[in-house]
């Protein structure tokens, strides 16, 4: 068996008396698309926040094994260092740099892959110029991937909702991750946009050799693209398996899917 890219063991997170994530274990293999589903307040976003360094987990271990690098524990590490190790995310409540242009948002994703400092920026020598050119080039490339190249100079906050979601993906991709965490990427999208999104996710996985961990309430999207699904309820993992197994799991149907799960 291949080594998991992300290996979460016994993760728990308390907020005061509330245990939002309770002893959850979960693996993501290289190149795999794993969906994380569950009712509202199940602790899905909290799990993302623990993995990406926004919160320091109360208990448990998180290991990241980026391809070609030694594996290491990332729980308790600062958010920006986790990103530098190849883990990028989007946010459930869109967090773009709303006053900056679309292109600048993506350029910011290149921050951790570039090095120009204060002195380099002021002197603007050949090295700094080249790096700036490469940043612009890479950012345009990412915008093309998600179909936003035509909006490069727009102010990000003025984009329509669906486009903002895609811009968040482009910005995350600019950090050159090996694992992408998407928090409800289809929320607020119309059915047409959602269908395009599901093609986009599958295409990105192939083109960039990405593994993807995805939170989503849109069951059609989840069932279509996931290799595996993990179900959370009240912070606990109640099921894990292929889309077919999950669809027919009585526990999951009771807790979450209900009748419309078969839609």
């Amino acid at each position: 068996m291949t080594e998991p890219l992300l290996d979460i063991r016994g993760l728990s997170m308390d907020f005061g008396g509330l245990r939002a994530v309770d002893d959850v274990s979960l693996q993501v293999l290289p190149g795999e698309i794993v969906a994380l589903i569950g009712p509202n307040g199940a602790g899905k976003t909290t799990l993302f926040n623990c993995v990406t360094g926004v919160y320091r987990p109360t208990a448990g271990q998180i290991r990241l094994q980026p391809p070609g690098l030694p594996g290491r524990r990332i729980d308790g590490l600062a958010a920006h260092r986790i990103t530098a190790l190849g883990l990028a995310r989007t946010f459930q409540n869109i967090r773009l740099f709303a006053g900056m242009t679309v292109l600048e948002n993506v350029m910011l994703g290149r921050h951790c892959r570039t090095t120009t400092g204060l002195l380099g920026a002021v002197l603007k020598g050949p090295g700094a110029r080249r790096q700036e050119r490469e940043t612009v080039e890479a950012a345009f490339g990412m915008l093309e991937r998600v179909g936003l190249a035509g909006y490069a100079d727009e102010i990000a906050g003025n984009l329509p909702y669906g486009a903002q979601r895609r811009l968040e993906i482009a910005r995350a991709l600019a950090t050159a991750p090996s694992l992408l965490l998407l928090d409800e990427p289809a929320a607020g999208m119309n059915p047409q946009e959602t269908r395009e999104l599901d093609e986009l996710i599958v295409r990105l996985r192939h083109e960039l050799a990405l593994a993807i961990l995805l939170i989503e309430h849109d069951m059609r999207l989840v069932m279509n693209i996931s290799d595996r699904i993990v179900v959370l309820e009240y912070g606990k993992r109640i099921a894990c398996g292929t889309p077919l197994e999950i669809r027919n799991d009585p526990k999951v149907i009771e807790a979450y899917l209900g009748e419309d799960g078969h839609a």
Partner: protein
Amino acid sequence: MPPVTRHLLHAGGLALWFMLLALPLLAVRVDTLHNVVEWRWENLLWVGSGTFALALLWRLRAAWRRSGHLAAAPAAPGRLAAFGTRLFDEPRLYRPVLGAILAAALIFPWLADTYQVNILGLALIFVVLGLGLNITVGLAGLLDLGYIAFFAVGAYCYALLNTRFGLGFWPCLPLGGLAGACCGLLLGFPILRLRGDYLAIVTLGFGSIARIVLENWDEVSGGAQGIAGVARPGLFGAEFGLAGMTTYLYYLLLGLVALTVFVTRRLQHSRVGRAWVALREDEIACAAMGVDVARTKLSAYACGAFWAGLVGVIFAARNTYINPNSFTFMESALVLSIVVLGGMGSIVGVVLAALALVLLPEYLRALAEYRMLVFGAVMVAMMILRPQGLVIARRRRYRREGDA
């Protein structure tokens, strides 16, 4: 009620309100010699009738506009705004304008008298301060209410090194900047995790502490008396008269402004500058994009403080005498007003606002005691009419290689 009556009533109410507000300031005068109160009702009458007329005009104009009579008018400001953006975007347009302004600034000392050159020099000091604080507040979004402390650090740095150790102006200039930057770092560390109101309170505290230390540390800072006999800057041993020195300092400051604008522009449109703005927009997303938030904040504080330290050295050299009174909260507030009024993050805006806020009170001296009143009114009007500031900072458009 017919609209005319409503307008009249509204204007009348406003006039009464303003008369009430102006009552203690304009109508009552306590004659301390004869211990009597002198009532100057005619002043109040002026305020009342003036307010009434203005309010009425304003309301009529608004009603007029609503009724569609001015519908065709917006085309003009639209074209003006379009020209404004083109002016900033196209080198063909802004290069000549920039050149003309620079040329005017260069020949200014030969056309104006020493007094004019002197106060323009003071304004240039505040231009540099505004541009420095613009990095911290305007770009990185980190509020700093004690910014003038870094200016004091630069000034005292030079005053002490010069009077105690005989160090000259030129070696002290970079030292003052570095001292400012170091203090910026020192201030930055403890407040890395704070934001909003807390940041305001703590930076305000730092500013006050700096001044209190200067006032009381007699052995080093000379206490409230300050330090006198600071050497003016030299130029290869040349001797200047008073007018010559004023001109020399003016050019020195002009050069510093040019340097500040150049460096700030380079920083603004670089990897570092983008991280500053992103930090202002969303700190959590910023960290998630791999930006070291602590480091970025510290660099913003240090860069902002650097310019204050640098221009502080020039300030000490210009005055030859410094004391803590030059570094009060009023000065911090003035610099912050410059940044806010100019338009957060906009270099052109900050330069214009600095010139306006420093020169306006000078030229309003003719109005004597009402000077600050008028000044305040202009500020309030400005914030009502244009809350985003004089010039709205525009984002740069990047082109990829090979594109036109």
